[in-house]
């Protein structure tokens, strides 16, 4: 497959109830895509459909191989007693033999992945006792162990400390260089400018293309509605979004 991800006329939702429609985009290998939109706009629904957890209600999706998915760390259960290395090791599950303990090679891959995210010294630390940014990096390490061609990351920079954010951004660059496709969801308009492509979602696809073409005032207003304040300072449209966190 030449593209990493391709969606065509996709409609998605839960139990037959449609929450997202008209999604059509293509992402080549070695490119990054920002999935931009407000909470409840359909970002997570799109990812669940790409992972195969939700069947498309209409249209088609194609993904090159089984994608790795990094959920928001606040969705993980912090009281479950596992260490950082154990979590990274979970990335070897799709490689088969899930009923057996991990092999030595899996263990090495997990250690290497933790080193890559700068957490080799925290390998034995309990996952729930790490900071939000460190937990995000451990989940990224799990995705690295999975060695997927396509990575889906759900708000990876939300609530992350600056050191972790820097480390994660650098890693995105490396993964892109390796020819992997990255889909990163965010509600932060400014960070969207750093991606190759942007897709704007608010219950349907409003725009798709390079950030300089897509991120204009009309599109942002359509995407965010009243949740956005446009900053007028003469340059390109700048926006600050007002987020209501859902739990």
């Amino acid at each position, binding site marked *: 497959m030449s593209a990493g991800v391709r969606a065509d006329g996709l409609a998605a939702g839960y139990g037959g109830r449609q929450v997202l429609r008209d999604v059509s985009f293509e992402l080549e290998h070695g490119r990054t895509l920002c999935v931009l939109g407000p909470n409840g706009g359909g970002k997570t629904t799109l990812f*669940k459909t790409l*992972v*195969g*957890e939700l069947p498309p209600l209409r249209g088609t999706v194609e993904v090159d191989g*089984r*994608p*790795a*998915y*990094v*959920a928001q760390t606040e*969705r*993980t*259960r912090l*009281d*479950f*007693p*596992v*260490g950082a290395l*154990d*979590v990274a090791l*979970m*990335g070897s*599950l*799709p490689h088969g033999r*899930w*009923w057996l*303990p*991990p092999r030595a090679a899996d263990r090495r891959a997990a250690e290497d992945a933790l080193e890559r995210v700068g957490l080799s010294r925290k390998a034995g630390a*309990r*996952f729930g006792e790490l900071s939000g940014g460190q937990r995000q990096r451990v*989940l990224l390490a*799990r995705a690295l162990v*999975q060695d997927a061609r396509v990575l*889906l990351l759900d708000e990876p920079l939300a609530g992350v400390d600056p050191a972790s954010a820097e480390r994660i951004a650098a890693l995105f660059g490396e993964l892109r260089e390796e020819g992997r496709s990255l889909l990163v969801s965010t509600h932060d308009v400014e960070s969207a400018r750093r991606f190759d492509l942007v897709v704007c979602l608010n219950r349907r696809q409003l725009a798709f293309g390079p950030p300089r073409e897509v991120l204009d005032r009309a599109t942002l207003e359509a995407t965010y509605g009243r949740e956005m304040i446009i900053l007028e300072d003469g340059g390109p449209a700048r926006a600050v979004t007002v987020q209501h966190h859902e739990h």
Partner: protein
Amino acid sequence: MELAAEFLLDPLRSGIGRRALLEVTLLGAVCGPLAFWIVSERLSYAAESLAHGLLPGLVVAALAGLPLLLGAGGGVLVGAALIAAAGRDERVGPETATGVVVTGMLGLGALLALAPETPQRLEELLFGDPLGVSDADLVAALVLAVAGAATLAGLHRPLSVVALDPSGAAALGVRLTLVRLALLGLLAVAVAVAVQGLGNLLVLAVLLAPAVAVRRHASTVRGSMLAAGALAVAGGVAGIYASFQLGSAAGASVALALSVAALGGAWLPTKRR
């Protein structure tokens, strides 16, 4: 000294005591680790529903002179099917549907058991009697212990993924529903086997309390499972000894010992931080 030896040896002198101790040891060894997963996967309510919902099956088996295990198995299947069917109605919702079905099943079981032509066995079915276990019950407990350990070992990694990060499970090739169904299946078998010793109402003690007791104190999954197993065995043995010394009902004594352990574990300060 002599008194202590007397205390320890007393239940071991009778075949009834030895059998009861063996039964609670086997059940505790498998139900303790199972309890850790039930609590970690947030399935406590399902566990309770399953245990209580199979009462009519037990009563029918007792009436027909069939093995209780068979009745429990049938009861679980009927209960699960009814819960699934009732929960499908969105106006009712799964939790309410479960509550209604389980109460209905429990009522039906009691109705059957209290009918004039039914032999006097309701008390045994509800509260169990570890002092009355047969050789067949012990064999069933042994098979459960071996099969349960193998199942939990085989499911260890998928269970961990689902317990930590249910939303990320699908991308790792782990089918959330299948893993939970497998765990509930093992739970159903465990309830069916343990019900003879601990009864339909008290069996929950060994399937939840050990996990609550160790939850805040163990720092690894393996440690939690081992500690929960050890605690379940210790609680069971303590209950049997209490029953011998105090003349209290054995099943209830075991359930109480386990509940006290859970209370202690939840109340004791943790070592860490």
